[in-house]
């Protein structure tokens, strides 16, 4: 198992290096190839009526006139060894892992990512628990009650959940529960759990439900399909023939087999969300990783985009690793192999 984990970690690091190069190329190499000049890039990061001297100053400060390999080398070196940055009368130290400084607000990217992580983590984990419990439960019940009114109603709701975008369900839920009924606080009210746990919970209820509604619908449909397939397997008939209780047959035998693909998707979904739930965070004005990256993209803030991309890739890789390990727990066949 240890060798397996070491192998996966090495592969993950290599993959992150490739991701960083690809992202760097997208944001730096392609614009340059299409004729973008360092001055053209720098003009985005200075005031409205910047003088040529100010633009040249920004070019030098951001090292935009360096060869691309040098720029990438500086970025990669910063991750490993850290780097300094001129704030004017003093230099700012950015210890490793330094993902560079935001072009727009001159803040180091890595501390910004860490600052935004708790909000995204709170949102993603809470919603994940909700959608996993609700989605799998509804899927199992639907499969067991196949063809009934309950099954049809559940699948209709699931279809609606998959179809409705977050910015619709989110804004509607805010309009009804925050601004009309006043049950929950409105957008922008996220408070860290360390500051006020009650406020943290209240502010996240609507985002959790909105986000979980989308995913739970998907998981309910997947679970139902998986359960229907598994319940028709020979070993289920054998389990029943042995006289096992129906509850045991369903939970110990059928659900366990159904959970394997669910777990794979769950790992990927959670990993993706930890890299930023862009729409949910934007709709509810939660200052998480997703809101950070969408704002960075809008503002051409390349170091932040690069940092979030690597950060998100890291979580996906990590989630995959954990899922692979959990496979062994859920599916005995993996353990044997």
């Amino acid at each position, binding site marked *: 198992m240890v060798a397996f984990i070491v192998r996966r970690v090495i592969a993950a690091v290599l993959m992150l290096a490739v991701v960083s190069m690809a992202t760097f190329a997208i944001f730096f190499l392609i614009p340059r190839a299409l004729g973008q000049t360092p001055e053209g890039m720098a003009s985005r990061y200075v005031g409205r009526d910047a003088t040529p001297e100010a633009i040249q100053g920004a070019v030098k400060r951001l090292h935009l006139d360096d060869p691309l390999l040098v720029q990438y080398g500086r970025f990669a070196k910063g991750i490993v060894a850290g780097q300094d940055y001129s704030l004017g009368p003093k230099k700012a130290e950015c210890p490793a892992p330094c993902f560079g400084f935001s072009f727009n*607000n001159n803040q180091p990217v890595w501390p910004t990512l860490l600052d935004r992580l708790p909000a995204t983590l709170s949102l993603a984990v809470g919603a994940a628990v909700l959608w996993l419990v609700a989605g799998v439960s509804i899927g199992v019940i639907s499969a067991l009650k196949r063809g009934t009114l309950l099954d049809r109603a559940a699948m209709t709701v699931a279809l609606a959940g998959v179809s409705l975008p977050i910015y619709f369900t989110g804004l509607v839920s805010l309009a009804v529960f925050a601004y009309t009924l006043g049950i929950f606080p409105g957008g922008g009210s996220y408070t860290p759990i360390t500051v006020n746990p009650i406020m943290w*919970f209240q502010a996240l209820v609507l985002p959790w439900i909105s986000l979980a509604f989308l995913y739970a619908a998907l998981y309910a449909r997947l679970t139902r399909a998986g359960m229907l397939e598994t319940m028709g397997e020979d070993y289920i008939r054998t389990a029943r023939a042995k006289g096992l209780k129906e509850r045991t047959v369903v939970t110990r035998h059928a659900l366990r087999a159904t959970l394997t693909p669910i777990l794979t998707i769950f790992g990927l979904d959670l990993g993706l969300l930890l890299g930023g739930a862009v729409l949910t965070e934007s709709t509810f004005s939660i200052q998480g990783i997703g809101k950070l990256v969408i704002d960075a993209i809008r503002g051409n803030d390349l170091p932040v985009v690069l940092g979030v991309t690597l950060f998100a890739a890291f979580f996906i890789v990590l989630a995959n690793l954990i899922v692979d390990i959990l496979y062994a727990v859920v599916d005995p066949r993996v353990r044997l192999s």
Partner: protein
Amino acid sequence: MRKTNVLALAALGTVLTMGLAACGGTAGGGGNTSSGNNNSSTGGGDASAAKHNDAYTKVVNPSDAKGGTLKFALTDEPDSMDPGNTYYAWNWNFSRLYSRPLMTYTPKPGPEGLKLVPDLAEAPGEVSADGKTWTYKLKKGIKYDDGTEVKATDVKYAIARSNFTDELTDGPKYFAQYLDAGDYKGPYKDKNLDDFKGIETPDDYTVVFKLKAPFSEFDFLVANPQSAPVPQAKDTGVDYEKAVASTGPYKFESYEVGKQLNLVRNPNWDQATDTTRKQLPDRIEVQFKQNAEDIDNRLIAGQIHVDLGGTGLQPAGRAKVVSNPQLKDSTDNPFTPFNRYAMMSTKVAPFDNIDCRKAVQYAIDKTATQAPWGGPLGGDIGTTAMTPTTVGYKPFDLYPNGADHKGDLAKAKEALTACGHPDGFSTNVAVRGDRTKEVQVAEALQASLARVGIKLTIKKYPSGDWSAQYAGKPDFVHKNNLGIMIAGWGSDWPSGFGFLSQIVDGRAIKPSGNYNMMELNDPSINELLDKGIQTADAAQRNEIWAQVDQKVMESAAFTSFVYEKTLIFRPASLTDAYVHSAWGMYDYTWLGVKQ
């Protein structure tokens, strides 16, 4: 049994959640939030006697009651909260809460607000006989929030850092342009402030500006937040925005860049030295990067007090308040400093012929080009280069295109015949493709000009490089036959020179980053601009700006679609609210909140 337990658990969870929600408030302002929620059905507060646009002409809910938390929200983040390093109009208004420039604007609604009054200075600048030296005396006893007194060298240092360094790039560089500072390298490269010859400080309370040439609107320049003092020892460069040394009624409590700013009362601010600001709320909270539609909903529900950007309600919010008379009474519809217009390139055929330009002037259906801005609520139909809130503005219309502004097609055809294209011609119109309203304006223009045979092809370019690579680059304009460019302009100070100098002066045409996109280089206009800025008498000066406006419109290269307006919402819980003409938004230094 299991089902019962699950249901009971769900019910308990719901009750618990609702209970918790009912008990709590938002961070830092629970009391206000609950009052906002209670008032949500009445549009953010108890029924108010104030009507639509009242705050445009008078102070709504006048009150000197102190206390409470004033809450702002913004869709964006600032370029910087450093008064020396910002170019956002809202921030030139907001930063006065914690910084005091030498001069500022009169705190009154209407045209009175465009007049300057001393702030850090005792009086307006004294100008030398040659017009090249401006002297300001500082009020004595003005302190920073740490209790130390403001000195003249702090003003000098503030201007040196904001105008002569590579690091602080976000603000304008007018002082670098107009001060006679030689090849001064800035205080980050040259630590000796005495080497900065553009400003002298003969004593602790006198600041003397040395100019390259006479500049009679220098008082406007020092109303820019860059003249707010900065103690050299406290300057941390681009990081200074995190802990600005305050001279205003509020000081920084905390600032998480791009997320949240909290201000609290500055105990060392003295009302006796400051006749333009108030200090009503106990604290001020600003949330950045908030969802635009949600900001509108929170305003209407009374959960926040002001949309900091002052750009007005989103389409959904606008529709909601306009259809509800009670909500509409809580709105104001001020002019912004912006003119939204088209420029015709005098260097691109056939617009090198004035009659072809006149044909466009007459053929435009201005009601159609007004619609994308939101109709009359989005702006008044424009006929001049200067806007109604610019000092020196005089209304006139050289190209009357029908009483309903839908176009005078007969006159347009006459002009086309005179320009040698009686059946019309084809040209391109450049527009920022990611700006929906401007694209819709281009489409409306296309439809209205087609009525006289002028065929427009819409060319879309990204707004990020609009000025540097496309419409602001004359070579590109000529090569791509861009006859018309759709743009907008808001001045840095509300005078004719502030508005016109960058967009109509032929000497301001640049190979890139050019805003005189029509490439109008009329010596008589250039001379008038020079004459005006050297004219000491304000009335004579304003007369000259009106003449410049007239000449620009005579060139027929400029056509205004709208003098932009916004629809801004004021919850009933907001006190002392009036629209300041200098910014087209509420005066943020006056606002208070009901307890």
